[in-house]
């Protein structure tokens, strides 16, 4: 696991309660620095989750960019519903809001891709020959990617959010617009499907 695959939790929970409301107010005032601050705070984590879901770096960047622009558009409404100093301001989490948007956009992207293509898993990492020192790492990366990409969209999102991003089940369910019971059921099926795929590859000891 490289440096960019660190859990998202720390990045999403850095802000103190109420700071996100102030940030939203600055976004509503059309402050570019606020948007840059949001990208610096949440961009990497959003891109990481989105990349693991789509398997495409360019697609992941486009999705994160769209999520940030939607936050830019919706900032006046968000700031109006969470005025600074109010009790609602303490409950505002822009990271969770962005995570929900990115997850939905990634799922939409995967469904759209599945409709337009024959369903082949993008596996561009294996197309180009690598140096011998990178062959083994590339094979391991390809194996993990194939396991993740073999899952359906929502199961894939559940594994990415809970295992890679280490989100609690409640926050992951919120990011996927599901209730906690339904999400736990989905996560259970996703883990079972992941283990079955791994067993089928014959990598299990």
């Amino acid at each position, binding site marked *: *696991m*490289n440096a*960019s*695959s660190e859990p998202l939790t720390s990045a999403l929970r850095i802000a103190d309660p109420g700071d996100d409301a102030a940030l939203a107010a600055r976004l509503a005032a059309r402050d*570019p620095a606020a*948007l*840059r601050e949001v*990208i*610096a705070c949440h*961009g*990497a984590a959003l*891109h*990481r989750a989105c*990349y*693991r879901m789509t398997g495409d*770096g360019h697609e992941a*960047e486009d999705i*994160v*960019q769209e999520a*940030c*622009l939607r936050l*830019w*558009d*919706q900032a006046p409404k968000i700031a109006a519903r969470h005025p600074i100093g109010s009790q609602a301001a303490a409950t505002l989490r822009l990271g969770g809001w962005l995570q929900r948007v990115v997850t939905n956009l990634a799922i939409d992207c995967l469904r759209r891709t599945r409709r337009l293509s024959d369903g082949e898993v993008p596996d561009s990492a294996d197309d180009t020959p690598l140096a011998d020192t990178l062959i083994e*790492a590339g094979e*391991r*990366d390809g*194996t*993990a*990617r194939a*396991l*993740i990409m073999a899952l359906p969209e929502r199961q894939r999102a559940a594994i990415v959010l809970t*295992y*890679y991003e280490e989100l609690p089940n409640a926050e992951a369910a919120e990011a996927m617009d599901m209730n906690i019971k339904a999400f736990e059921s989905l*996560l*259970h*099926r996703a*883990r*079972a499907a*992941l*283990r*079955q795929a*791994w*067993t089928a590859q014959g*990598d*299990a*000891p």
Partner: protein
Amino acid sequence: MSVSEQDQGAPVIPGSPLARVLDDYAVPGLSAGFADRVLAAAEVRPAPLPELRQQRRWRGWRLGRGIALGIASFGALATAAAATGLLQQFDIPVPSAEKVWASITGKPPARAAAPAPVIAAAPDTASEPASLAQVEIVGPVDTPEELSEAFRRIDEVRAGRYATRRENITQRIDNAIAQRRAAGLPVPTPEEEAAFRQRVEEAQARRQQLADERLAARRAEMERKVANGEALTRKGIVQPLRDDARAPERLRQLRRMSPEQRREALRQLPPEERRVLMEEYRARRQGPAVPTPAVPADSPPAEQEGAGTGTRDPR
């Protein structure tokens, strides 16, 4: 580890073989200048669309409006049906306004004491107050008791009409004397006035006696029919009287005509009606003539009598 032996839905334990494989999924970092591209896109991004004018709350109002219109339409139809008596045709009771108001205020309706069902159950009798009824008349009159009750009600109405007629005659005489006095014309002395009123009373009594005789004959015939088991309806009791009552009106119409027109009208009448008119004319002619103002010399005497009294023949 044997996957098949474990719960396949259990969390992936860090450090396990599966976790080591999953941890090898490397992720590249964001490309350089990503934030600048997002900011540039935000600058040129068009403003979001405004909110839809139709909000969610209007959906509920549409439903409420539909319900309100339905209730109003049903109320209008029900009111129209009750007003036209359509509901009564289907034996659906419709309370009167008095009963509804009494149920609201808790006070008994003003006409609650009146035996309304008796009135409704006796449509074949004369329209006398049902509160005076001693015998309840149900359906056609087919018993002597019911016929007597019908006669009693008719007599009550006739007595009221005679009283009203006498009052009208007295009032007209007083008005005529007052008008002559106001115009400076000679007025009758008290003795002459008393004699005049006496003659009017006598003429009225004779006419009433004639009417009573005709009525007695008709009642005898009706009693005979009832005794024979024949049922009499309201039309059978009242309609012949109405035919006779038309004769004075026709006599008045004839009086307004010129002599030539009157003769032509009598000539064109059906024989039956012409006979009824002649009988009426003869009956009035047998009575004493009541002094009346200017009457054409060739007009029937019955017209003079009608003009003098200004009354109708009692039925």
